[in-house]
């Protein structure tokens, strides 16, 4: 009588692991992609960055299975991957790699009942912001993305980036100053502004 080879198709490890990983990571995918896009400034590069992070994670199930609060861990891992490895393989200046059109960007936003005139002004401003951000060094762009765009507090960034609070503050200060200088130089060479209603507009 032959020996019976144990076979448990319902516990197929590959399929089960994929399903578990998908269920685990899906709630964080949008946040990861959005942050990756802010880091890289490029849709395809953002996908590549997220994909590389997820592949590394997937191959180490012991890491992700036991994470109780994965958001901070994922953001740190994404940031480290971008800073330590990914950026070295991408040499093109960021401001030449924006391939997502502004129309696509606007269409992807929930605009609600925004006033068109106000939106037009905001669009101009956002273009200038994007141009200025693209000119920043990556470490300044990432900290601005995490603090000013994604809304992480300085304390959260200290934990997330594993940096002393003072270091985070000084980096953020330098990044904001640099952005302001670039913004003024690019968008408003003369450094003049005019007031329209309650807002200040760059000329």
């Amino acid at each position: 009588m032959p020996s019976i080879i144990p076979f448990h198709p319902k516990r197929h490890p590959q399929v089960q692991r994929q399903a578990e990983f998908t269920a685990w990571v899906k709630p964080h995918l949008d946040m990861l992609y959005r942050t990756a896009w802010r880091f890289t400034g490029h849709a395809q590069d953002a996908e590549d960055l997220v994909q590389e992070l997820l592949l590394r994670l997937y191959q180490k199930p012991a890491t992700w299975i036991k994470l109780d609060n994965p958001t901070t861990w994922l953001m740190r891992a994404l940031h480290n991957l971008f800073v330590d490895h990914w950026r070295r393989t991408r040499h093109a200046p960021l401001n030449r790699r924006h391939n997502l059109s502004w129309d696509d960007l606007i269409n992807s936003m929930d605009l609600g009942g925004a006033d068109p005139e106000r939106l037009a002004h905001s669009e101009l401003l956002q273009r200038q912001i994007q141009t200025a951000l693209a000119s920043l060094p990556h470490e300044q762009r990432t900290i601005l993305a995490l603090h000013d765009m994604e809304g992480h507090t300085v304390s959260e960034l200290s934990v997330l980036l594993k940096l002393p609070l003072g270091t985070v503050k000084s980096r953020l200060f330098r990044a904001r100053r640099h952005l302001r200088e670039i913004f003024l130089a690019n968008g408003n060479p003369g450094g003049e502004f005019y007031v329209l209603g309650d807002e200040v507009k760059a000329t």
Partner: protein
Amino acid sequence: MNCELLKKLLDVPATEIPDATLADIHIHIESCHACNQAWRMKQLLSAALKASPAPMLSEAAAHRILAQVFAADTQRRRNVMSVGIAAVLVLGLALGFTLNHFMVPVPDYVMRGDKLILQSERPTTVGVAFDAGSTLKDVHFTIELPAGIQVAGQPGVRHLTWVGELHKGKNLLKLPLVAHAGTDGLLTAKLSQGTDHQTFNVSIRAEAPLPMGSRLWHGLAQAFDWRS
């Protein structure tokens, strides 16, 4: 508050500035046009950064990313498996099909020449026998099924891997399969232990239900290991 101090605070996040200092700033900018402009500029920049749009990840893109992750992982595993495959095989295996007469007195599959014929659209347990010269532990089993055939109860599953062991002598693997009519392809069984491996291919085809007489005939023929 004075202009120099305010200038130093222009790049500090508002959340990091004490309320009392903020009150002093507001008093100062009421009477200083340059500082007023600079402070408004700071607020505008902060607001613009906060409102800066980012694209949403579509369902299709999410699916694409995960599919590429899983595909890359599978490819990496295959590469690892293929690296260092020794020319010397320690597995002494013979592949053959055995009738599992304990479970199905009349089998739902027959052998026609070298081809395995399955009855379509019906779960069928196919027995695959491996003859091992000695007990082998940590054997990686891989079964790959052709398109149109899947594991019963697991739609779409055509690639199976697991780790088990082989005892000395005959070992029977019972595969519960479901095939769609017209399917014709190869069932591949790969066994590897360390850097040694063996691959077996069996031609397999699914057909409409066999006539009862034919099924009984083939069942008897295989039960007694007797062919006409």
